[in-house]
């Protein structure tokens, strides 16, 4: 689960990491009222759960209420890579002297968190890693966390001034603590700035939480901003489906994540374009299939739907039953191609044939068939 910048900053502030003051507004007037309290210039920052908002024009420094109203009006409602901006963060403009990077990720290879710091702040860390890998110091975080001596070493790597190092070291220790205690999979300060007055602050903040750990953090789970996510993905999650929207025309309903990816790939291989990733899970029930069909048929770009079910734990007849219920309840006008193999395949075929539907048993054959049907429907 991705947190907004303002939510991430709340976590940082609570952990003792200095962050500049800021408040969130969802309308222009509210934004102006907040800015009056801080005094101009202020920065207006789009709160959207995707990167690249700066490049998209979602961040603006303004010097007056008029400028602010104009900028906030333009940013609120703006579409950034498919997501609508519903809130802006208003924060006093900082006098930046130099900027750094500090972030924690999971190092999958070494199976432990990794702290990365870099004097090249304000740019994508991946970009830095590609162009100047020597500018990144990597510190593996073992069960001890970040011992103070390593925090001091990292601070020295970033800044020459001992007074600044003294501020940076505890920030890094606290960042490691936030990552661990909140079960984050990413905790990033970019940039970590030194102001002209010699103060170190987290000017931007990004926290991604481990979805699997949200059960033990009800306070964090409550931060989920459903409005900021794709509504279909929100519905899918509530129904226990794993769904990602893509931009093709062939919908697919698959059991298992690996098979679902392979199905998307096969659609592209045979010349089609997948409309989504959708995993109905292992022990699927008819309701899930119905929910899946509902989501797919709402998408106007979907011209045909492919069911690809390999029965193991999933019983093919359960899926067939769910599909038939869905067809009864929804008005489905697009062609459906079904591929079934495995557990209770025979029963499933009987159920479907009573409605005049035929299930194929080969994946390639089914993919070619659905592409052909989609082309006819176009």
């Amino acid at each position, binding site marked *: 689960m991705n947190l907004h910048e303002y939510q991430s900053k709340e976590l940082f502030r609570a952990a003792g990491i200095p962050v500049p003051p800021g408040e969130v507004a969802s309308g222009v007037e509210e934004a102006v009222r907040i800015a009056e309290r801080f005094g101009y210039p202020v920065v207006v920052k789009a709160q959207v759960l995707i990167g690249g908002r700066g490049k998209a024009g979602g961040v603006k420094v303004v010097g007056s209420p008029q400028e602010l109203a104009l900028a906030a009006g333009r940013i609120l409602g703006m579409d950034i890579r498919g997501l609508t901006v519903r809130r802006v963060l208003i924060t006093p403009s900082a006098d930046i002297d130099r900027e750094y990077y500090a972030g924690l990720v*999971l190092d*999958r*290879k070494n199976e432990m968190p990794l702290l990365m710091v870099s004097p090249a702040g304000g740019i994508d860390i991946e970009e830095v890693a590609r162009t100047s890998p020597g500018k990144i110091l990597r510190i593996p975080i073992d069960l001890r966390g970040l011992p103070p001596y390593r925090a001091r070493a990292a601070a020295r790597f970033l800044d020459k001034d001992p007074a600044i190092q003294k501020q940076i070291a505890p920030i890094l220790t606290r960042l490691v603590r936030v990552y661990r205690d909140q079960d984050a999979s990413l905790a990033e300060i970019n940039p970590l700035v030194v102001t002209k007055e010699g103060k170190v602050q987290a000017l931007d903040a990004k926290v991604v939480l481990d979805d699997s*750990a949200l059960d033990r953090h009800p306070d964090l789970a409550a931060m989920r901003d459903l409005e900021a996510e794709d509504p279909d993905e929100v519905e899918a999650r509530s129904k226990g489906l794993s769904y*990602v929207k893509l931009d093709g025309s062939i919908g697919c309903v698959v059991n298992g*994540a*690996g098979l679902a990816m392979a199905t998307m790939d096969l659609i592209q291989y045979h010349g089609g374009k997948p409309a989504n990733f959708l995993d109905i899970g*292992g022990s699927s029930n008819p309701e899930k299939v119905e929910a899946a069909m509902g989501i797919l048929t709402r998408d106007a770009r979907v011209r045909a739907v492919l069911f690809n079910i390999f029965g193991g734990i999933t019983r093919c007849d359960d899926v067939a039953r769910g599909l038939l219920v869905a067809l009864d309840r929804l008005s489905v006008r697009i062609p459906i191609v079904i591929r079934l193999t*495995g557990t209770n395949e025979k029963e499933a075929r009987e159920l479907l044939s009573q409605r005049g539907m035929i299930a194929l048993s080969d994946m390639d054959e089914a993919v070619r068939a659905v592409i052909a049907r989609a082309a006819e429907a176009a």
Partner: protein
Amino acid sequence: MSVLIGRHTRVVVQGITGRDGSFHTRGMLDYRTQVVAGVTPGKGGERVHGVPVFDSVEQAVAKTGANCSVIYVPAALAQDAIYEAVDSGIPLVVCISEGIPVRDMVEVSAYLRGRPSRLVGPNCPGLISPGLSKVGIMPGSIVKPGKIGVVSRSGTLTYEVVWQLTRAGLGQSTCIGIGGDPIVGTRFQDMLALYEQDPHTSAIVLIGEIGGSDEEDAAQLIRRSITKPVVAFVAGQTAPPGKRMGHAGAIVSGGSGTAQEKMARFQEAGIPVAKTPSEIPGLIAAALQPRRKAKLKLVRKPKRAAAKPKRATKSKRPAARRRGR
């Protein structure tokens, strides 16, 4: 023959009284796996499908000589279940549970370092050695005894590939799903080394997917030290960056972990990469071909055979000749 599990495997099911545990215990018994014990704290003395239930793994091991554990407990309890199995001296621990927090697995990983237990999973379908033993949830109906080792990060995609191999007459020595999480106990490299040592495995199918760099590491290892033919497949070519594709570990982040990159690494290492699952049986058959040809040559051209009769007849690893180091 097989890798990791076989006739000798005596299974204890952790979480045997739960819905999944009980259901899959039935499936393992039907496959004639030796399921010797179950564990659910507080339910010692009960029986599930005739299998005795104990309060702890330690008791189960003492009473039944279990040497393999399979875990079906809810994700929140899985870390403790793994610790209990490891501390009871179980050499092979297979964790099926899905949705374990990453932090729990970071701790498990650190604990396992230097300890003799091997963990398979979590978030995996387990293993099956056709005709011998099944530990986990893979359907027994799709496998067939043979010489292909199959290792995969996925569940149903593994079934798909195994089923296509079986239909093509290519049986399997052992099929294993290593799990779709960012941190798993057994990786591709571990399985490749085990298949390499197994005299009854003659070729390997590796099914990878987006996320992480295990496939890249596997490609390097194969180039360095695997002499048996390997055929690879990577799922997720059409996956958009930054989105998790069902599996917790299946995510392209910061432009790395893409299917394209992984496929390129395999190709650079001289490993055939299947473009679709249905290409896999053909590539495996082709990879096994030269050996048959060599044998034929032996019959037809006695001169050449005379020059190296020992290598052709004695060597149990003829693939080593084809693939340079």
